[in-house]
């Protein structure tokens, strides 16, 4: 049963990574930038949810909605003030700006919320855990909710990008911005929208992550952010199914490495797997290779 428990925990953690990785991969697909501040948006989302539950006494569902709304606005603001002026700058400069935004979010959180860890109250406290095989296998409610949310988000995004007008505009922009603009697509607005969606998803991921691992600090988002970025690259950056696959794989590998090899070395193994995959398939698992033209 240990194996099954680990597998389920791995899928659950992987689902959180997958939701965060979606934010990375969509932003990369359209803006061709590594948004290092994404991990910290997760932390902000979790703090908003924590505050509205603990200080305002709102219901979990309302808190989550508030947190998603807050992060969506935050994402748009970040894009407008930090990244938009740099549309034509070299990618490294945009990366540095993203790092600046990341520090800004972390340290603002540090000043407002102080550095002591907060114990995050689970958003699904009322739901019972499921017992299978006569109580031998216990699955916590948050695990099920996380996996279901991830599936729901994936289906929703797939529908959004393939069927709706905005989603198609988004794909067009990530293919060729110039051509998209000529076809009458508002590129600036589309990019803002991608940031909004990505940040909204980050808020959900933050709440789910902190419900499963309930310590909340200003640096909470940093490591999951890096892992999710790794997951996005593993699956093939820019590809939405790739982010889902990479995230779940990464979560499973991490939990198994923790269980069978050692907690301390788990991160090293996760990153080693990434290097091996990239060496065999340089564009990631589901990424498509582009040929360079002279």
């Amino acid at each position, binding site marked *: 049963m240990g194996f099954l428990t680990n597998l389920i925990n791995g899928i659950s953690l992987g689902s959180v990574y997958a939701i965060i990785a979606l934010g990375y991969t969509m932003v*990369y697909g359209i803006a061709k930038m*590594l948004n290092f501040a994404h991990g910290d948006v997760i932390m902000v989302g979790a703090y908003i949810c924590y505050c509205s539950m603990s200080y305002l006494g709102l219901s979990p569902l309302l808190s989550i909605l508030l947190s998603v709304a807050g992060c969506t606005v935050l994402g748009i603001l970040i894009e407008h003030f*930090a990244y938009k*002026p*740099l549309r*034509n*700058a*070299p*990618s*490294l*400069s*945009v*990366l*540095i*700006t993203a*790092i*600046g*935004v*990341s*520090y*800004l979010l*972390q*340290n*603002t959180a*540090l*000043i407002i919320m102080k550095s002591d860890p907060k114990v995050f109250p689970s958003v699904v406290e009322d739901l019972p855990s499921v017992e299978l095989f006569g109580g031998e296998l216990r699955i916590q409610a948050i695990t099920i909710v996380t996996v279901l949310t991830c599936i729901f988000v994936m289906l929703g995004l797939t529908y959004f990008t393939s069927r709706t007008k905005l989603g198609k505009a988004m794909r067009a922009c990530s293919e060729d911005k110039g051509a998209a603009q000529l076809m009458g697509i508002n590129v600036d607005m589309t990019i803002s929208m991608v940031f909004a969606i990505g940040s909204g998803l980050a808020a959900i991921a933050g709440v789910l992550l902190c419900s499963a691992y309930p310590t909340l600090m200003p640096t909470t988002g940093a490591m999951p952010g*890096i892992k999710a*970025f*790794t997951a996005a*690259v593993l699956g093939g*950056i820019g590809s939405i199914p790739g982010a889902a696959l990479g995230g779940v794989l990464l979560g499973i590998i991490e939990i198994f490495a923790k269980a069978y090899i*050692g907690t*301390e*070395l788990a*991160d*090293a193994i996760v*990153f*080693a797997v*990434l*290097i091996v995959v*990239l*060496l065999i398939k*340089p*564009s990631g698992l589901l990424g498509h290779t582009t040929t*360079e033209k*002279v």
Partner: protein
Amino acid sequence: MEKVRHLSKATRSNLITYGLVTAAFIIMDLLIETGSASYSLMGLLVPICAYICLATSLNLVVGVSGELSLGHAGFMSIGAFTGIVVVQLLGSGTNDVVRMLIGLASAAATASVAGILIGWPVMRLQGDYLAIVTLAFGEIIKNLLNNFWLGVDKYGLHFSMKSAMALGLTDGGRVLINGPQGASGIPHLSSFFAGYLLIMFTLFVVLNLINSRSGRAIMAVRDNRIAAQSVGINVTKYRLMAFVIAAALAGMAGALYAMNYSSVMPKKFDFNTSILILVLVVLGGMGNIRGGVISAAVLTILPERLRFIGDFRMLIYALVLIGAMNLTYDTRLVEWRRKIREKFSAKRQGQDERGGVSGE
């Protein structure tokens, strides 16, 4: 004629860089001699030297070779711990200068081996993929060193991935690297002068490389990989060359940095340190060695000077980063700066016409 002028321009620029560093060293040294340097500033001198070396070496990868590396602290870490182990093994019987030199040389050796090991396979990757692999590499190094124990007794060296007990040292044996606690009891071999010499060495290596045939090949690969390949430049060789030289120099800087403290933990050399070095390079201007040197010095001092404002310190640092990037690339701001510059040059031209200050 054109060629000669070009070369002399590069040499002059290099001499300015050496002169700048030397002048800064002499001024700082005078301040220390006269006792007017503050205690906190004196504690910062060796770290500043180390960061200048790190920024210069990373500049070789990011600016000159055009690759994004997010794992420079990994090489720093390898160099630091190699240097520590080697000087500990040599013992206090050896002359300090010789110890330091052997420590630095072995740091450079292990870091360059690590550079080849990681660089050789990943040089097939491009752009952001290379970035994520170097990031992963830095994290792996940190993780492995967190689980690495090394000890020495009369039978020689012992290492373990489990615990200090598992080393099975006999009486009189010492633990050199103690897992997450890192190394302690490091001999204080670094000095401001050693730091100055290492900066000069790093600058000498990097600047000479840039102005050599290999350096031009590296820059050709950066500017247009396919065109460079088509004129017969071995792309992988030159990318790897820049990467490995930078790794070796970072290893030496790491050893210098570590030997300034009595104990060093592996988690000091994490992703944030790599990012810090990258920030130094980008703010100094990618590929501009002198700019990197200046920004390394300023940005190491700035957070310390801002310590009195407590938690707001890093907030200001973050705003400086965002502001500097926006100031450089925001089209509206660039336009605004261009206008101001035009206004100034128009004024000066006016003066020239009136027979005022002229060039000759």
